[in-house]
């Protein structure tokens, strides 16, 4: 099975909470990928020789301190805080901005190779059934068609623990409408489309169920005839394996700490409610897709992927190829958000077609298929929280049911487990199989759902305790960064003027609310790079790591630039190619924290080599040289200095290069990140429309390398979060099993007119864990919090709590009692 979790190394040793990360990039032992699981343990008696260094530590608002760490001797000296650096932490224009703005960036969808064929995927038109026959003759005969490949194995679905429970069949069993069946390669996309219509598939249909609630019934059609499990991806997703399964209900994954019953008995107040969230589709603008050029000595794969390494691994696994014969290239990438790891069905089909035709084959999914092949699972959560009069939490109990269609990974317990300190906790997470496309990792898997319930319940608790919601969080939240972030919100927003719930008399009601996020520090040891310095003074960085649009290229240019004292624009960045040293797959916000230390270390080592090579000619020793402000300076003689170019000109060879790989974190600690988002909104109680007017986000991502890029990502998280809360919803037809709105006109996504005023404040958080202390922001950037913050602001505006999303006008009017409907019920699709 190629789509396994590639678990990032993290500080598991001293981190019991690691296993409390439901649906994050999950560190479940059985899912650990061998080559990343066991990095050399940093200890005094093993590993490379160490030296002791003092690192800047803490959060500037709280006063910075220092932290002593043992670091490998070949690592650079600790970085100063951002304020004292030249390029790191300074707003920097995107490295590939001009290429993108001028239409020159070549995305996978844009790749054109000589003799390239265009492929189309043919998918199932029934939601459940056995394929009796597939007739490809007419399609094959169509002039211009070069090959038809019929799928032998479908990836991305859960698989039966015991395959013998199902009668074997000639073709993979169809479990959702839209499941890939075949691929066609033709000389033009139009001919491939024509041919797709000529493929005749005969089905023996089976009963199906696409609704989570119906699927839980004892007599519901079984999506799988026995227990089945699904793997996650490098981005997370995927549910627990080996848990009980009755009918379509897979689970629970049960976790308990302390004694919840005693905790509730000791509580002064208890809040208890049910919450519902919908299925959200990724809707990256570039659909999933590949161009595969299968040659006998090397298979080249252009991939719209979040992990060049994940694609290479899958190609090697599926086609039994040595990795040395697989090259994966991702130069520009049109968005992923968690859905694009490994080769998937489209990559496997493209590769088979290329092998059959001896020609490069491009297979991009169409928009309908994109909506079907991956999603964020829905949820039905029952949540109960107990607290003392002073706000101290005494017990939390969460039961969640969610459908990831034919996959698993709908758990939502992350926020309830990891946001606040609570001695007694019980969580039970169930996956419910339905005949719908598989769930996948999607920006902070499980957390937007979990936060929507949990952070609203905390708000409800504040109401019951007659406490300010921020004061309650100050009481129960130990995270230092979020404390500073809450303070920023109090100082910089309208929070102090917050009025009692439902204060406006007229039909337009305004309110404000906050919610908090939690994410985890994951680090991938598959993070290597090479830095080259040439005699002409040019500096290049190479790594297989990819840039999904998050700004990886820019971030790496900045790190190299800081080390060499040259502007980031002068560093050439070559990434997204597995010919270069291995890079981390970009999921779970691992990229920045994983690859930047390797890059800084390599740049530092290249610089040391340069000094060593030229020092004799300069009549000095290497340790007398250092680089600053773009010049090579003599420590013992301030009057002597050279440009970098003058120095490299003295290299005895044409180039020098250094390679570095991410080492383990300096210390084993449980580390989380978090943001706090504040929302002001207006509810039109006559039309049911919710207008988000202002968002203030305060966020922590360790040491920000490029604040410009970080802020862009947070804007994106906030806007996706608003879109999730108010608009987006997959609609399944219970009668046919089809997704009815698998397109961008009926699947409503936030547009320009719905964009509120957004203000973002980054909180620097130095943790002294690596040579850069950088961390990713993708997950904690607003997507987790916004639905809950909007829910809390909605309550403040109206006095009514929204327990289901999306907050469409119909849902809002029902909640307000303006139209018949059942407030607090699931938004029916």
């Amino acid at each position, binding site marked *: 099975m190629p789509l396994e979790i590639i678990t990032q190394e993290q500080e598991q040793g001293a981190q019991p909470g690691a296993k409390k990360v439901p649906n994050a990039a999950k560190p479940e032992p059985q899912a650990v990928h061998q080559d990343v699981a066991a990095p050399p343990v940093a200890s005094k008696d093993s590993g490379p020789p160490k030296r002791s260094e003092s690192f800047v530590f803490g959060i500037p608002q709280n006063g910075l301190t220092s932290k002593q760490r043992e670091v490998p001797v070949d690592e650079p000296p600790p970085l100063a805080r951002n304020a004292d650096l030249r390029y790191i932490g300074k707003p920097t224009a995107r490295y590939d901005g001009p290429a993108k703005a001028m239409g020159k960036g070549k995305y996978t969808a844009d790749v054109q190779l000589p003799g390239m064929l265009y492929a189309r995927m043919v998918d199932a038109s029934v939601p459940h059934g056995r394929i009796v026959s597939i007739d490809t003759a007419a399609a094959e005969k169509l002039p211009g068609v070069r090959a038809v490949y019929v799928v032998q194995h479908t990836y991305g679905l859960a698989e039966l623990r015991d395959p013998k429970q199902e009668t074997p069949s000639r073709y993979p069993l169809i479990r959702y409408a839209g499941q890939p069946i075949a691929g066609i390669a033709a000389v033009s996309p139009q001919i491939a489309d024509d041919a797709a219509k000529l493929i005749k598939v005969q089905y023996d249909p089976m009963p199906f169920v696409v609704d989570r609630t119906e699927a839980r019934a004892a007599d519901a059609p079984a999506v799988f005839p026995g227990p089945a499990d699904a793997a996650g991806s490098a981005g997370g997703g995927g549910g627990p394996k080996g848990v009980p399964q009755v009918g379509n209900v897979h689970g629970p994954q049960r976790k308990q700490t302390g004694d919840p019953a005693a905790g509730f008995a000791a509580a002064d107040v208890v809040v208890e409610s049910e919450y519902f969230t919908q299925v959200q589709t990724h809707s990256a*603008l570039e659909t999933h897709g590949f161009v595969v050029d299968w040659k006998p000595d090397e298979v080249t794969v252009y991939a719209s992927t979040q992990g060049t390494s994940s694609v290479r691994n899958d190609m090697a696994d599926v086609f039994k190829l040595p990795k040395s014969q697989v090259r994966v290239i991702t130069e520009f990438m049109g*968005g992923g958000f968690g859905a694009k790891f490994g080769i998937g069905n489209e990559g496997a089909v493209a590769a088979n077609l290329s092998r059959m035709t001896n020609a490069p084959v491009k297979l991009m999914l169409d928009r309908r298929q994109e909506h079907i092949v991956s999603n964020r699972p829905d949820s039905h959560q029952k949540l109960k929280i107990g607290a003392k009069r002073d706000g101290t939490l005494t017990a939390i109990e969460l039961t969640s049911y969610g459908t990831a269609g034919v996959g698993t990974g709908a758990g939502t317990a992350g926020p309830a487990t990891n946001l606040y300190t609570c001695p007694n906790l019980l969580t039970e997470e169930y996956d419910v199989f339905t005949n719908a496309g598989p769930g996948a990792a999607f920006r902070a898997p499980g957390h937007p759902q979990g936060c929507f319930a949990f952070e609203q319940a905390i708000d409800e608790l504040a109401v019951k305790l007659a406490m300010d919601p921020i004061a309650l969080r100050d009481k129960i939240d130990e995270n230092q960064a979020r404390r500073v972030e809450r303070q920023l919100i109090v100082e910089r927003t309208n929070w102090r003027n917050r009025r009692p719930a439902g204060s406006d008399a007229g039909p337009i009601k305004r309110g404000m609310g906050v919610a908090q996020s939690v994410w985890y520090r994951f680090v991938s040891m598959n993070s290597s790079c090479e830095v080259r310095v040439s005699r002409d003074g040019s500096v290049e960085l190479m790594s297989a790591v990819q840039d999904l649009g998050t700004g990886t290229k820019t971030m790496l240019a900045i790190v190299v630039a800081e080390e060499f004292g040259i502007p980031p624009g002068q560093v050439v960045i070559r990434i997204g190619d597995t010919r270069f040293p291995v890079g981390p797959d970009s999921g779970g916000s691992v990229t920045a924290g994983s690859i930047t230390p390797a890059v800084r270390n390599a740049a530092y080592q290249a610089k040391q080599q340069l000094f060593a090579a030229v020092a004799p000619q300069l009549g000095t020793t290497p340790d007398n040289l250092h680089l600053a402000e773009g010049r090579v300076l003599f420590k013992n003689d301030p009057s002597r200095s050279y440009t970098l170019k003058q120095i490299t000109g003295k290299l005895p060879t044409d180039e020098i290069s250094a390679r570095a790989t991410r080492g383990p974190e300096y210390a084993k600690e449980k580390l989380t990140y978090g943001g706090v988002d504040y929302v002001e909104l207006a509810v039109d109680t006559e039309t049911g429309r919710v207008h988000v007017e202002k968002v203030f986000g305060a966020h922590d991502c360790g040491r920000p390398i490029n604040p410009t890029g970080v802020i*862009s990502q947070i*804007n994106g998280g906030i806007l996706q979060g608003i879109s999730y809360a108010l608009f987006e919803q997959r609609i399944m037809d219970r009668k046919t099993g089809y997704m009815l709105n698998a397109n961008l*006109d009926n699947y409503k996504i936030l547009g320009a007119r719905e964009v509120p005023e957004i203000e973002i404040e980054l909180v620097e958080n130095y943790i002294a864990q690596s040579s850069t202390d950088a961390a990713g922001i993708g997950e904690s950037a607003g997507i987790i919090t916004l639905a809950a913050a909007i829910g809390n602001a909605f309550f403040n505006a109206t006095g009514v709590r929204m327990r289901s999303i999306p907050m469409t006008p119909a849902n809002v009017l029902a909640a307000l009692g303006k139209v018949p409907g059942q407030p607090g019920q699931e938004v029916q699709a």
Partner: protein
Amino acid sequence: MADEHKSTFSRRGFLKGAGVAAATTAVESANALAREAQAAAQPDPTLGPGALPVKLRINGQDHAVTIEPRYTLAETLRNNVGLTGTKVVCDRGSCSACTVWLDNVPALACMTLAIDATGREITTIEGLATGDTMHQVQAAFVKHDALQCGFCTPGMIMSCAALLERNPNPRLADVKHAVSGNLCRCGTYPKVFAATLEVAQQRQQTAGLVGLTTGKEA
């Protein structure tokens, strides 16, 4: 969802059937009506379904391509001319990623048949820059980081640059309106607004300065 200025589809059937309606600008309506009138006077020859040679004027250059009448302009630009800056995202007129200009008016290349673009001036994202020098709007997008994955960016820039041509002094609401059909999943909107408004401001200032130096009111 589609911006009104995007609705100048060249599918003749659409123009005939739906009329030019209020959806098009006055000038463009007049042009479209004139073309329709001309087309009515000389009935269309039957074309296709096979491929035929067609001449397209793209970014100031003539391109001879052999295409089937059913090919959209977006497909033709990307697959037959090799100009892949124009992106196809929804292929049904709901995201504006494929926005190009036809005779300087934004149009959706996925909703325009290539043969209907003959005789018209087609401008794509590749034609906006002057050599390696970015158009002001492109440069502002880079400066403000109004692009992340960049897949929506060509369409977004074509919409914003066109807005500034027809309205040199837009307000925030005008920019929002101009890109209301442009979908961006990465969430670049706030920076798109800032970039576009800054170009407008720069142009105003430059115009003001020119006015001062020449003694004429700009």
